[in-house]
């Protein structure tokens, strides 16, 4: 079903075009007029993109969970590159989230110099992010994925804080180096596919049928995941992020942490799971462990931070751990929770960085010890901060809880101990956030703190949509979940088919026997599973022999039986 209007192409080109317009606003207008004109272009561009994203979500029908609104045009036919865009339930909400956050990130922070290039970079960045979320061709995805680096580099280096050059360089080199692995892996997949079928293509849908040996899958998986793990970031590839988040101007921090982090986690779900399902199943324990370590490690290091922005950076690492957990648990519940958690994390982190930016613009510091008793002079700021903080802690009724619970409950089904250890992270997140809140907002205000002005109207309007979404997604996430779930189910089924495993179903076994339809399905699945299990174990042990991935093989199949409690 191809809609007549090319929604997704427009979605990518609109912000890019607006960026060019912003860059072309003539200097001759005079400083003030030029600034206003640039701001108007920025706002109009991001709001038009938001309107388009809303139109997409209205026109979106979950259906069977496949891609919709597809536009597919041959682009560089000699190389098999096609302009192939599409959304499914997984990407559509990331698109919407990004579209919501960009105008707020622009409105929520005032840039004091050179607005023209700033707005142009931000708009270009939005185009890159949108393109990454909707691209279904590996080369197109890679182009957009890398395109995002340039604006971020200039935003940090041009408008950042004291150590901006170090942070910008570190960010750029680190992520760029990791992407090189992905580029090699992309080419390798296409070449192997060409050897098998004679067709050179970078189309994700076509490449998903490539037959790859387990060794090839593991190596290519590592290539892709290197790029995504740095981008997200996943522990232990995170050390660029505290520097980059802290040195960025507010807009940059918001976009980096809230939107761009999702390029990494989204990439894993979209590309790793589609292309390398067997490697995903085999390496899941490793990635799950990294996720859990990230949750605990991020929380523990956050406890020792004395700087609000770095604290949020490490808390972000912990929250991304939940997304990793949700992805690699490979159950519908956990993965749906993981996708929802991407949106949740975006909204919450964006709100946190905006609020911290406003504290900075009032008090000129984000040192936790330099702030005290702000709740008395700025009660609304404190109230909004409380709500956002509680969402981050995972209070039921706010959005963070729904995602976290789904991830943990879904992970428990397949990987019990990982889920239990991750639950400890739930305790720790309360520890550092409440401590920071008490230091900054509670207690008697010092003289300097006592005159801190409360939120302005403009700031209130910027943060209000975020708070509204945080509450809405916590109370009534059904419309969102109903659209994510079919796509996740499809993806989990794809992984199951490719590996011959079956997703364990929670509940007593006799429940399956009651429903004849279910019984039929489960019997069939069980039969194929047994047949395939032998196969995949055999090929796994082959891989062990040739490659020494001994640790990798152990969990290649997850039968429902072994995880039962006595």
């Amino acid at each position, binding site marked *: 079903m191809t809609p007549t209007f090319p929604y997704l192409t427009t979605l990518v080109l609109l912000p890019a075009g607006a960026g060019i317009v912003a860059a072309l606003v003539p200097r001759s207008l005079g400083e003030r007029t030029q600034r206003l004109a640039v701001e108007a272009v920025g706002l109009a561009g991001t709001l038009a993109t938001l309107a388009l994203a809303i139109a997409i979500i209205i026109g979106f029908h979950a259906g069977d969970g496949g891609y919709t609104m597809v536009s597919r045009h041959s682009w560089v036919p000699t190389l098999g590159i096609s302009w192939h865009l599409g959304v499914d339930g997984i990407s559509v909400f990331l698109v919407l989230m990004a579209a919501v956050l960009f105008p707020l990130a622009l409105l929520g922070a005032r840039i004091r110099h050179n607005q023209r290039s700033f707005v142009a970079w931000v708009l270009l960045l939005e185009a890159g992010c949108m393109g990454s979320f909707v691209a279904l061709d590996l080369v197109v995805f890679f182009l957009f994925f890398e395109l995002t680096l340039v604006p971020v580099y200039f935003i940090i280096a041009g408008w950042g804080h004291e150590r901006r050059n170090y942070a910008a360089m570190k960010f750029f080199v680190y992520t760029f180096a990791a992407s090189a692995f992905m580029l090699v892996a992309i080419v390798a997949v296409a070449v192997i596919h060409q050897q098998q079928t004679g067709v050179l293509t970078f189309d994700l849908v076509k490449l998903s049928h490539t037959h790859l040996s387990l060794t090839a899958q593991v190596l290519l998986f590592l290539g892709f995941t290197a790029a995504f793990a740095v981008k997200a970031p996943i522990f232990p590839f995170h050390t660029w992020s505290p520097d980059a988040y802290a040195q960025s101007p507010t807009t940059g921090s918001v976009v980096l942490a809230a939107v761009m982090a999702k390029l990494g986690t989204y990439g894993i779900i979209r590309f790793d799971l589609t292309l390398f399902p067997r490697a995903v199943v085999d390496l899941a324990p490793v990635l799950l462990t990294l996720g859990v370590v990230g949750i605990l490690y991020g929380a523990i*290091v956050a406890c020792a931070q004395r700087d609000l922005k770095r604290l949020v950076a490490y808390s972000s690492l912990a929250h991304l751990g939940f997304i990793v957990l949700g992805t690699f648990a490979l159950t519908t519940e956990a993965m749906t929770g993981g996708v929802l958690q991407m949106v949740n994390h975006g909204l919450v982190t964006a709100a946190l960085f905006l609020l911290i930016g406003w504290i900075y613009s009032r008090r000129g510091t984000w040192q936790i010890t330099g702030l005290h008793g702000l709740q008395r002079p700025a009660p609304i700021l404190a109230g909004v901060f409380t709500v956002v903080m509680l969402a981050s802690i995972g209070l039921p009724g706010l959005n963070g809880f729904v995602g976290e619970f789904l991830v943990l409950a879904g992970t*428990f089904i397949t990987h019990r101990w990982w889920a239990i250890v991750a639950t400890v992270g*739930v305790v720790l997140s309360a520890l550092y956030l409440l401590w920071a809140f*008490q230091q900054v907002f509670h207690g008697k205000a010092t003289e300097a703190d006592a005159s801190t002005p409360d939120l302005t109207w403009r700031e209130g309007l910027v943060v209000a949509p975020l708070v509204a979404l945080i509450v809405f997604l916590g109370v009534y996430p059904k419309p969102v979940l109903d659209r994510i779930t079919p796509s996740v189910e499809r993806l989990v089924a794809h992984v199951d088919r490719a590996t011959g495993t079956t997703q364990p179903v929670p509940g007593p076994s006799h429940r399956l026997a009651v429903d004849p339809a279910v019984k039929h399905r489960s019997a069939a699945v069980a039969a194929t599973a047994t047949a395939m299990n032998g196969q995949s174990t055999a090929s796994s042990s082959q891989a062990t022999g040739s490659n020494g991935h001994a640790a990798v093989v152990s969990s290649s199949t997850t039968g429902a039986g072994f995880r039962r409690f006595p």
Partner: protein
Amino acid sequence: MLHVAYLMPLLPLAGFAVLLLVGRRMGDPWAGWLATASVTGAFVVACVVFAGLLGRPAGPDREFTQILFTWIPVGALQVKAALLIDPLSMTMALFVTGVSALIHLYSIGYMKDDKDYPKFFLYLNLFVASMLVLVLANNLLFTFVGWEGVGVCSYWLIAFWFERDSAATAGKKAFIYNRIGDAGFLVAMFLIFDKTGTLDYRGVFAHLGAFGPGAATAVCLLLLLAAAGKSAQIPLFPWLADAMEGPTPVSALIHAATMVTAGVYLLCRMSPMLALSPDARIVIASLGAVTAFVAATIACAQQDIKKVLAYSTISQLGYMFLAVGTGAYEAAIFLMVAHAFFKGLLFLGSGSVIHGLDGEQNLKRMGNLRRYLPLTFVTFTIAWLAIAGIPPLSGFWAKGDILDNAFARFPALWAIGLVTAALTAYYMSRLGALAFYGGDRWEEALSGKGGNGGATGHAHSPHESPVVMLVPLVVLAFLAFFGGALALPWHPSFDPLGWLAPVFGSALYNAHLTGSTEWVLGVVDSVVALGGLGVAMRLWVRNPERPELEPVFLAKSWRIDDLYDAAIGRPGASLARFTAVVIDDQVIDGAVRGIARLTGATGAGLRRIQTGFVRQYALWIVVGVVGLLAFMLTRAWP
């Protein structure tokens, strides 16, 4: 009539929403009256639903599920926001709304002139809504919404006077201790979902066969961890004493009558699960008995009137856990309701005292108040005698019920419970003696500045509280006095405790003691209670200074805070610093910077080779050729 049930949580929630929007404009006292009205409305609705339930025949008909909306539907996890109306949830809803309405009324007077008056009622209304969700929810996850909701309201209200550092710290402490328990709740839910594929209470109980003994015990102990956090049992009890930093109505409502009983409620609700694990029940009963005893010893040595009551609450909750572990769920609920009456009253009475003394909370600076606060004294005395277990007041019956059942099942725990009963009578009478008898010792309190933000007034002798504060005292005194009547089998159609029995079914334990045994036990209880009372009055009326009876070890609550600080707090802080400074910065980021430096150094090194002199390049070529030849030679001549 049952379908109006949704109004119970909705009315206070609406009150919260209105106060959030226009609370500041309404101000003092209208915000308070609005909040009180919304909770009173919820109480009326609860009465209507209760009547509707009574109108149905006993048994499965007295159970009604109201689905509000689908909350989280993903795969096998289908969670609805739905209410379960049954005798247990309605008992809870009735006393929660009733006591809440009274305490809201009281707060109108108590919080007068506070800077954040509307905000107080905003939190209070949200608390009541959350508490009702907690008790009315039909599945574990929706219960958890209320569970966390009351927790966060408790955090806000403890830290209500946030400019005081001790209050802010106490709020944070409460939240974190509760959070530890919540982890247990979460893992219990994961395990239950994994085993049964559902979180609905009815659905879980229908699939109990899926649990082996190990899994059942695991679930019960995890739920116990959750309950111990919320209900302040060993080892998670230290937060409740600090929670007394909150305004006194908060202590009465949240930290005595309602929220802290949530743990007991959860275990009662999960009674069919508990029935699967005798081991877990023994743990619960022992934990309850030991907590009851330990907290009672601490209460004997406190100087602060509210701290005595806080430890007393922990101790009484311990009794309830003892009852749950025994399987005497009816007795647990009975004490819970009676405790809501008399402990709520004790806190409100102490609030009246604190109000009258301009914020003084130290018992050693009170004395002889029965002359100045007559109505407070009379109502307080009723609650004091009730909790001490003097017949025929409610506490005697409720505590007796628990002790009788324990006697039949766990005699050793019964003995601990009996000693605790003596201590209870002792510490309450010590409090009564120090506050209301003896000489006037409050001059200092009234001449100095009251440190309490909620209390004002500049009278030079203690003054009785305004009418809005006295009405709740009188009503609760009536209930605390006659609450024991709940246990009387009035009539087959109205048997207030017996109507709970169908909820617990076969899980319920009811000791069948002979009439004479019951009489003997009742007499023993009374003698012990009177003994404790007599000893305390003899010791404390005349002489308020008896340091030998207030050992530091008890005053410092068995040094539990020091222990946690030394065992967890300080090592934890060091671990965080070590991880941040050494592991994160030096090891992980060090590796990253190391790779960068290595690349840079390699580049710098290689750059030196590229000199641009052709003869140098030629030299390197020669070196390379020679090297290659040498290599080939070694390979050819092995």
